[in-house]
């Protein structure tokens, strides 16, 4: 996953309206920490870096490189599950 990629959720994947759960075909993934906030920004237009910048606004003072790494790690993990497409 590159910082200028514009990921989106795979077809048939959506966030549960209230709980920290990603609904996917035949299953569900429990989301922890800011995972929900990250995934809800994915629209196939925003870049990974856009998502990082948005998080930096919410978590003022957090080191940008740590956030960048966390976001990329999460998205790559989700890509591995087949629920995020770059």
């Amino acid at each position, binding site marked *: 996953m590159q910082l200028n990629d514009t990921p989106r959720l795979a077809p048939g994947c959506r966030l549960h309206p209230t709980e920290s*759960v990603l609904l996917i075909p035949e299953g569900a993934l429990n989301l922890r920490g800011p995972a929900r906030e990250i995934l809800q920004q994915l629209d196939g237009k925003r870049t990974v870096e856009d998502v990082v910048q948005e998080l930096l606004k919410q978590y003022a003072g957090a080191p940008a490189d740590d956030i960048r790494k966390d976001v990329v790690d999460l998205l790559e993990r989700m890509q591995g599950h087949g629920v995020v*497409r770059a």
Partner: protein
Amino acid sequence: MLTSSPISSLPKPLSLIAEVTHRCPLHCLYCSNPLELKRAEDELPTADWKRVFEQAASLGILHLHLTGGEPLARKDLAELIDTAHRAGLYVNMITSGVGLTRERLGELVEAGLEHLQLSFQDLDETTANHIAGTRAHAIKLALVPVLKEFPLAFTVNLVVHRMNLDRLESFIGLAEELEPDRLEIAHVQYYGWALKNRSLLMPTQEQVDRSLPVIEAAKARLKGKIHLESVFPDYFGSFPKACVGGWGRQMMLIDPTGQALPCHSAAIIPGLRFDKVQDHDLGWIWESSAAFQRFRGDSWMPETCLACPRKEKDFGGCRCQAFLLTGDAQAIDPVCRYSPDHHLLTELRLPSDDVLPIWRG
């Protein structure tokens, strides 16, 4: 995946399998539905299904799996999907695709269908139709480009067994060309009708061994494009599968007549009585129905299982399989290497070549 609750506490159901009908245009040799199918005139009416879906959502169930038979045989399917979707359920449908026009698919997606699974019997039309007992292969292939017109997750399911496992690589190739979001490679499960054809369908050890690297290679090749899931054939394993995620632990199934079952084939187990959604709400059934209590948790387990740390992983395996193979639903699943009946599987794995297929009517 979702975190599990301890085996002893009352868990929360996550998925509801709705067998809305047993009517089906296909007559697959490996059909795992019961030998005795429910008749159309005994099917649960629209209003009852709708109530069940609403109750399911308030119980915290996330997924609805519409299946059958062929769910498309229900004229009220769009209405059922609409209710389930509005209640907050994620709606999956397993279909043969036979009779699914662009117009009808549009109605179903509009109503809230989010994921559709289409299974293929083989890559070659003649054998695929032979296995399905009807000419469905070309219809399925023709449906795929239509599916792509809709915002819908699409899974291709390849059902594998002795008759097609040698062609797995090309079979996966066919699936790749269809460009699904997900690809499932599923070995036949030997329940219901499939059991009748077990000696015809059971792969050989060599076939299974050869298939594993093919699947691993496909997983690596398709990574990031198509999500591949495969289910190892448990007859060839040393430990049982966590059948339905544990008895009365994650899922409930409603059959076409409204009976609530803890799994697909629970009706074969003698002495179980199933409550009906016409008489009780889903929450009561989940908590109190005797059939759901019967093998829930670990109090029913033989000593070997009770003392085994794997019980938190496989929940004692499959009760139906224990019954089918040993005659005792409470026995250790014979797939388990610690079962005194484990040798039965060695015998069942030996294929016999002079058997003829039996299609269901």
